[in-house]
């Protein structure tokens, strides 16, 4: 067992042993001494049949690490998720949070829901308080957006008005699209610049993540040359009929 793996194992073991009155002792050779309490059974069961967290699951998590971009919250032994700074901001009345440590501390308990699981299994969390506030707002405003039909089933839920604001357009993708528009004939730049930005916005609201948005933008840049040619051939016809 490598040191890193050993340490991780140690962390896991400690988290199980610390599990209140579990009455579990785990030796380094893997022998488990378990009490007879329900917790002990549950804790062992959790290892034997690991619960795969999925979108919408709710947990009472513990803050285990804070960073400049958010806080890592432990949901289950060995399963952490990220509570992004924007979500923490929402918890604190939408005010800008300069330093995470001013508002969140290691060991804080916080009720969270899993909003997203990316393809590498990383979890994005939202505070349940924020989810419920958004849901209440959603009931008031009602109505869903057309663009979700375009998501090929990637958007699990109806985004609320608040979430629509939260779904970010990737700045790099927007920059690439600006470039794609700048490569077009001067007369068409403004129009296509606006059209591209609008499409990117729709794409983001439809649930496209950063990678999807970047792929979209790269595609648009790649088509700038045929696009310019298509636009120029019209101009030639107008100027020299």
């Amino acid at each position, binding site marked *: 067992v490598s040191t890193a793996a050993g340490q991780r194992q140690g962390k896991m073991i400690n988290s199980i042993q610390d599990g209140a009155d579990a009455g579990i002792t785990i030796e380094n050779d893997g022998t488990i001494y378990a009490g007879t309490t329900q917790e002990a059974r549950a804790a062992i069961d959790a290892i034997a049949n690991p619960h795969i967290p999925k979108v919408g699951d709710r947990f009472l998590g513990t803050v285990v690490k804070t960073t400049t971009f958010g806080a890592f919250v432990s949901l289950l032994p060995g399963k952490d998720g990220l509570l992004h700074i924007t979500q923490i901001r929402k918890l604190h009345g939408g005010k800008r949070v300069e330093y995470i440590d001013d508002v969140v501390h290691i060991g804080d308990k916080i009720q969270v829901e899993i909003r997203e699981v990316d393809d590498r299994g990383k979890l994005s969390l939202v505070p349940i308080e924020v989810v419920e506030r958004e849901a209440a707002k959603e009931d008031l405003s009602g109505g869903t957006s057309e663009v979700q039909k375009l998501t090929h089933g990637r958007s699990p839920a109806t985004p609320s008005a608040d979430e629509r604001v939260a779904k970010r357009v990737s700045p790099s993708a927007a920059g690439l699209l600006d470039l794609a528009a700048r490569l077009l004939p001067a007369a068409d730049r403004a129009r296509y610049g606006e059209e591209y930005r*609008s499409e990117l916005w729709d794409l983001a609201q439809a649930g496209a993540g950063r990678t999807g948005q970047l792929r979209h933008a790269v595609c648009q840049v*790649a088509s700038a040359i045929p696009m310019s040619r298509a636009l120029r051939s019209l101009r030639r016809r107008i100027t020299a009929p």
Partner: protein
Amino acid sequence: MDRERGKPRMTIPTQRVLRALLANPAHDMYGLQICAEAELPTGTIHPILARLENEYGWLTSHWEDIDPAKEGRPRRRYYRLTEDGAECARIALAQASASAASLRSLRARPVGGSA
């Protein structure tokens, strides 16, 4: 290039875009919708749309009539086939599929058969 004026080259992506637009000619569609309907990447459709709109006049486009500030989203650019464009597109698609069919039948003939 042997492109005759008045009719675009009916490449497969062009055919797909036209089919997408013909599927519901009464509705305006915006870029992403056309992509989804035609199952083409975004980069592909804009040059095609630009040609169909500017060079051949089969399409018209207009900005969505909303107040972006009030709606909280940018306005979309909507595309629609003109009446003539829809007619031309139907004919061109029919010709394209007919020529594709004749190509297939040529290939199906045994070697040495007269064309």
